[in-house]
């Protein structure tokens, strides 16, 4: 039943309604795909029993002719950063060993209410800290794509590597993901799928293991823009349990896909033409400009002058918040505990054994930048940079409606590359972190292949809470690019 795993969410929804197939058949097809693709290491926990029972319940509702939820019978996979009631939730970390939350995150609750089916929990960088999904305690995720004529396993990007890989490999129709500095968009670009980070405050953070609270935002990874619109519509919404969630109605994103961008102004930020950008990436960016022009949109040269300070500011703010957010993993109440002779020793033993090298590095950076005597020079200055970056965007949006950039400075690289140089790894986020710092929505759309056959994405950045425009332009870009390539493993 390979064709069932190839369906988009929109097609599955329509087919289920027309009773062309059952939710159970779709789910079984995906569980079979999951079994065949274990080599990718995309899942930390598979929940086939749960999937079958949820699909069965969907079929009952469909048979009764009850009004179908937006995702009725659609099999999804969940990044293992979302707490799921009674199902192991690890954040990709040893320190959450055996942790089964007695509650369900708001975003996943929303999905289940919309009728979606849970396939399992997806691998990720430990506590979502990484750009290659190599920092997970549960091992690296492999990208389903490979370079032409080269068998070396590639990274899927990160931190939502399992999410992007599972959707690209046709194991899940869609996956939840989170994005703190690019963790939805960069893996989407690396795996040839669509990923949107909505505006900060659009999705509730309640029940999502926190990395950097002022930057974290949940979003979907899917194979088409329309699917992303459907899935985000189900995930988003105000949640009184999250004080940073915004009480604004969620528009019908699918209805925004009109295909009409005539007269729309799209900005090209000159500061994103960084030195050393591969020509393939440069060329694709130019193609994007041409496609949108051809559709009747108008390119505008814009300036985001503080872009060069974004990465350093991000790598101060995110670790600072993380160092405090991760203090609760102390071995006292849940997860791993490594005993010690004193309470301090227990803390040290537990956290040394429980956290991997990248998490330890960021906790130490964060602790340092918040320390007395350094706070003003680092954290406070980074916050000022953050305000300037937000102002850059506000100025730019006086001249344009959306901004077009590459998603990442390169295509997927091999597992093991860049591992010894954290700075080179951090550069992956150069086009994406500004969006988190400004709290804006950003979407990555697969737009082409490199010379050796790896996907590349283009990023569109929108105004705050204007995901609708983002979807509309992304839809046009998607049609123009006509990206139809699949990883070799799925034919």
């Amino acid at each position, binding site marked *: 039943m390979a064709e069932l795993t190839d369906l988009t969410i929109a097609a599955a929804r329509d087919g289920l309604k027309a009773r062309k197939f059952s939710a159970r058949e779709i789910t079984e097809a995906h569980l079979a795909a999951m079994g065949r693709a274990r080599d990718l290491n995309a899942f930390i926990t598979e929940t086939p029993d749960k999937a079958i029972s949820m699909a069965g319940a969907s079929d009952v509702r469909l048979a009764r002719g009850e009004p179908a939820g937006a995702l009725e019978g659609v099999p999804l996979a969940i990044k293992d950063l979302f707490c799921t009631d009674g199902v192991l939730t690890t954040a990709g970390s040893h320190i959450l060993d055996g942790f089964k939350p*007695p509650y369900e*995150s708001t975003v996943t609750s929303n999905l289940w209410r919309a009728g979606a089916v849970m396939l399992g929990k997806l691998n990720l960088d430990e506590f979502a800290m990484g750009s290659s999904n190599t920092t997970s305690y549960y091992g690296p995720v492999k990208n389903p794509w490979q370079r032409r004529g080269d068998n070396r396993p590639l990274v899927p990007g990160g931190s939502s590597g399992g999410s992007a890989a599972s959707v690209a490999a046709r194991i899940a129709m869609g996956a939840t993901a989170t994005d703190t500095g690019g963790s939805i968009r960069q893996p989407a670009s690396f795996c040839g799928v669509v990923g949107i980070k909505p505006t900060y405050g659009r999705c509730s953070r*309640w029940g999502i293991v*926190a990395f950097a609270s002022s930057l974290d935002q949940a979003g979907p990874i899917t194979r088409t823009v329309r699917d992303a619109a459907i899935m985000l519509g189900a995930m988003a919404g105000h949640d009184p349990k999250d004080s940073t969630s915004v009480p604004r109605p969620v528009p019908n994103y699918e209805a925004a896909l009109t295909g009409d961008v005539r007269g729309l102004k799209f900005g090209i930020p000159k500061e994103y033409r960084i030195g050393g950008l591969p020509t393939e990436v440069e060329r694709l960016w130019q193609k994007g400009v041409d496609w949108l022009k051809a559709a009747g949109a108008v390119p505008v040269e814009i300036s985001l002058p503080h872009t060069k300070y974004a990465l350093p500011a991000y790598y101060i703010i995110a670790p600072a918040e993380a160092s*405090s957010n991760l203090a609760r993993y102390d071995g006292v109440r849940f997860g791993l505990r490594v005993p010690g002779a004193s*309470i301090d020793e227990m803390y040290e033993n537990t956290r040394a054994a429980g956290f991997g090298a990248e998490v330890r590095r960021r906790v130490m950076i964060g602790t340092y930048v918040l320390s007395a005597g350094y706070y003003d020079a680092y954290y406070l200055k980074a916050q000022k940079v953050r305000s300037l970056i937000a102002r850059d965007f506000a100025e730019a949006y006086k001249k344009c409606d959306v901004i077009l950039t590459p998603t990442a400075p390169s295509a997927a690289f091999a597992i093991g590359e860049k591992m010894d140089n954290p700075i080179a790894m951090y550069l992956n986020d150069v086009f994406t972190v500004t969006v988190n710092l400004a709290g804006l929505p950003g979407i990555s759309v697969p737009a082409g292949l490199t010379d050796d056959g790896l996907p590349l994405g283009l990023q569109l950045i929108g105004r705050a809470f204007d995901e609708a425009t983002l979807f509309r332009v992304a839809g046009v870009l998607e049609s123009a690019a006509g990206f139809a390539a699949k990883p070799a493993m799925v034919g």
Partner: protein
Amino acid sequence: MMIEGRTGKWEIVIGLEVHAQVISKSKLFSGAATDFGAAPNTQVSFVDAAFPGMLPVINKVCVEQAIKTGLGLGAEINTVSVFDRKNYFYPDLPAGYQISQYTRPIVGKGKLLIDLPDGASREIGITRLHLEQDAGKSMHDQNPSKTYVDLNRSGVALMEIVSEPDMRSPEEAGAYLRKLRSILRYLETCDGNMDEGSMRCDANVSVRKPGEKFGTRCEIKNVNSVRYVMQAIEIEARRQVELIENGGKVDQETRLFDPNKGETRPMRSKEHAHDYRYFPDPDLLPLVLDPKRVEAIKAALPELPDAKRERFVRDYKLSPYDAGVLVAEREQAEYFETVAKGRKDPKLAANWVIVELFGVLNKQNLDITKSPVSARNLAGLLDLMEDNTISGRIAKDVFQIMVETGKDAAAIVQEKGLRQVTDTGAIDAAIDKVIADNAAKVGEYRGGKPTLFGWFVGQVMKATQGKANPAMVNERLKAKLGG
């Protein structure tokens, strides 16, 4: 108060930090209950236990209580304030940080008048008031090798109220605490029960020669009664004087007061000096208050002790001291007003409440809300005195019976036949009999021994079982003996 040292007089400089638990049904950032004395870990939400993905949501009631308290202290209310994280590791601090307010508290500068024994008042500056979470409780004495943690208190709202270093004696510190507690109770924002830990005090103490700069201060942590705070301050000040006079230097440190040994001693070693790494909590937006809401809370404030005391002096002609005693607790003041309202002689009412009633309550260790004599009944007793139904002397007997039985005065007077005799005929008859029975004494009196008059009064009163109106006895007796 000055400390007399070897090298001269030393002045004590005191600032107090009070942690007052906010009266609210649920915690500062979670819906868990806040009842005192519940079984361990029965009032804990996943937020309080800092489970992954849990987020704080501000409790509006706690915010209103802080505003109310700020207004009660005559303080500025900051319409924008910010919650910060204070980071440190401890098992009873589940998140590894306490949510507090560091650079931008909800309440700014205010003041508090303390009442001194000589009837004078002195103004003590309030630096700030901020909202913060309480931590849980570590119990080290339940198991030889383990520490148990009770998170019931974790996340309960506290107001930290910081004074300026304006106090100069343990007595002033005591007066400050009593006054603050009184205001908090009037406002119903904190129950002020230090023995239950819902009001806790840290005292910053230093010494200096009068007129010199502030000395280095020590902070005495978590003292749990007014008396102990006063003792701790005095003991700590004397320690510092002795240390300095012996050539030593005071280290700025945190100390604990041991009331059994009568000493203070250092609490934390230097290696554990904390760097709390304060930063704004990214889970919470700045707290923005609508000035209209602040105005509405202000308009609904109850009359506070200082205003009430002023009014008692003005309207009831009480001495400032008596008025101060009565207003210290809202329930006492209300009791007094019930007794005194509309009375010709409100000072008499004050005397009865302060001397007779408080005497009984003190002896029986009772709160005024548990008084065996209700305010209405005491008013009834005073009515009987005012309309001459009974004399003041009989009234004391009646009051005693009221204390024992809880009955009202009129019923007791009726039952025991204690009504005062005001019938001139009956009084004259008694006087005539006394004069007739004691001819010799009458002779002595008339012969130039006027001091015997009191003896005659006593005889007449005895003859009437004390029920004769004393003024009338005086008047009639004088007339008859004189004639």
